């Protein structure tokens, strides 16, 4: 069901992107993802080139082998990817919106030529090191630092919760310097640089999450991203990724909703389908409304982004509202499926657990709430 028919407002291109990603997810992801989730693995190396061939990686960037599509087309792709699994969308987000965007926005011409075409093709993978073990919402206070040594840079520190960390060919690492926060391209295999995976996760299990350790990592002078100094560098990339999330959440919520509708129509109790009971119908109607509103928000923010008018506050609005809506939908769907809702035979608990991560990564709901609070009052609650 889709009462508002939001997708009728998509262009032909955007619909073709939707149909293509939906078909690829149905063919290559849905039959396998519960198994990946259970085993705690994600075949990044195999999927990278397949998604690259489609043009999904860095699809909204211009040139250097990227497709150069609209923000809405990118959003629709994120939505369909996340209807498969939040881990899949995270993989694409980190590659395209974080690592590739950092190089595209702030890299030198040589950086772009060296990395972007291979990353667009999925032959080279990237990760994005900002968060640290003790610094999440407050990245400006990061401990990782880089110092000049002759013409070289020497990096020390650690980064935590890094998606694609151990599978990446290149890490975009943000570090404190005497000039302020700078970005560095750290190729895998650089002496002193290690990435080890974080295990025992109960969320985003079909996703590689790593810790990066930098122990006297020596880089040549041209490893630094020349285009930006200061926290606005990484934050500019995060704004891109958050934009993808506000679409992606709609997909995860939709997958749960569809499972719940199907279940409600076929599961019989007291001699009739549970979808005939008012309590179930009330839940389904509420989910329809929540997802319709989230879909409208996503499309609206996307159109603003394509017009070059979107603000960080609008992205915070969408990320906060849509992830919360998707998580609520997932929980409601779980109640409709009863005990079946907690197994990997159905997608609901997988999405629900994933969304617990989506709720706090790329800006916790608390931080996005305070971004809105500041926009409303003019007073920052967390910055001096």
């Amino acid at each position, binding site marked *: 069901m889709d009462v508002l028919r939001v997708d009728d407002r998509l262009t032909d291109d955007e619909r*073709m992107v939707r149909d293509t990603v939906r078909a690829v997810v149905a063919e290559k992801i849905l039959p396998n993802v519960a198994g990946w989730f259970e085993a705690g693995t994600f075949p990044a190396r195999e999927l990278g080139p397949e998604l690259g061939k*489609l043009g999904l990686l860095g699809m909204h960037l211009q040139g250097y082998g990227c*497709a150069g*599509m609209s923000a809405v087309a990118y959003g629709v792709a994120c939505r369909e990817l996340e209807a498969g699994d939040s881990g899949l969308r995270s993989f694409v987000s980190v590659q395209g919106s974080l690592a590739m965007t950092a190089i595209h926005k702030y890299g030198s011409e040589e950086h772009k030529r060296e990395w972007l075409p291979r990353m667009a093709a999925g032959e080279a993978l990237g990760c994005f090191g900002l968060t640290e073990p003790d610094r999440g919402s407050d990245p400006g206070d990061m401990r990782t630092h880089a110092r000049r040594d002759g013409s070289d840079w020497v990096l020390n520190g650690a980064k935590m919760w890094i998606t694609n960390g151990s599978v990446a060919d290149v890490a975009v690492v943000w570090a404190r310097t005497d000039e302020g926060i700078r970005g560095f391209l750290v190729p895998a295999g650089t002496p002193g640089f290690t990435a080890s995976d974080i295990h025992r996760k109960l969320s985003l299990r079909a996703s590689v999450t790593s810790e990066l350790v930098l122990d006297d990592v020596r880089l040549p002078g041209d490893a630094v991203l020349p285009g930006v100094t200061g926290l606005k560098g990484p934050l500019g990339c995060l704004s891109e990724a958050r934009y993808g999330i506000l679409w992606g959440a709609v997909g995860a919520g939709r997958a749960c909703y569809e499972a719940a509708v199907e279940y409600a129509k076929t599961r019989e109790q007291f001699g009739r389908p549970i979808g005939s009971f008012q309590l179930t119908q009330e839940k389904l109607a509420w989910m329809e409304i929540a997802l319709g509103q989230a879909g409208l928000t996503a499309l609206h923010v996307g159109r603003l982004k394509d017009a070059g008018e979107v603000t960080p506050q609008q992205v915070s609005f969408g990320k906060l509202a849509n992830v919360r809506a998707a998580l609520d939908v997932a929980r409601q769907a779980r109640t409709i499926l009863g005990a079946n809702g907690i197994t990997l035979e159905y997608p609901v608990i997988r999405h629900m657990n994933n969304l617990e991560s989506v709720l706090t990564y790329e800006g916790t709901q608390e931080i996005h709430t305070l971004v809105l609070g500041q926009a409303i009052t003019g007073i920052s609650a967390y910055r001096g």
Partner: protein
Amino acid sequence: MNIVVCVKQVPDTESPRKLKSDDNTLDRAAADGVINELDEYAIEEALLLKEAHGGEVTVLTMGPDKATDSIRKALAMGADKAVHLVDDALAGSDALGTSYAIQQVLGRTGFDLVILGAESTDARTGMLAAMLAERLGVPQLSLANKVEIDGSSITVQRITDYGYDKVEASLPAVVSVVEKINEPRYPSFKGIMAAKKKPVEKLGVADAGIDADKVGLAGAATEVVDFADAPPREKGQIVTDEGDGGAKIAEFLASKKFV
């Protein structure tokens, strides 16, 4: 090599399909349109042949305005250009009229090879390739699951109930394909962007030199006289196993001549 792929837009097989009660023709507005599934294999084969031998792939579609969606998808997959035959006078054409209209367009575009799916999921007559080859006076190679071209000769594997026939002919020719032939590619995003700039020529009946009396519902040699909904599926038979379940299942299969 000049390859023309005939692409038909059909109602999505996922959505309910119906006939119009006033003239017994398919209600094309009622359902989402998609590329006829076998035609996607035809497009893929044309692209593979072009990649191997060079040349140009032209998409030829006869259908209403909304068939533009399917043309764009074929172009996004990699076809070079398209001809869209669109005219109210064509609505309701049967296979004879359609083959005539397409023949007229092919006379304008020229061709070395015409490729199309062996049948459509809507009318399912499966006759268009044969009619087209006859009208064009060129060989028909039907039900191909493999196509090879060497200079001006073409060889296909034609699937049969017992295996396949090897069929040879010389170009130009008409080939109809089955789903075993390849795995159609998804349109890449670069392909979607590039498709916007590819030429789509729209032709009406008069532009293509088509005699309007020979096409459309009025010009059709066949007529759908009546239609009815398929009867609901009968309730399945449940066999309770009382130690003789295997025998009962074998009996059932034998009664249906499966064993």
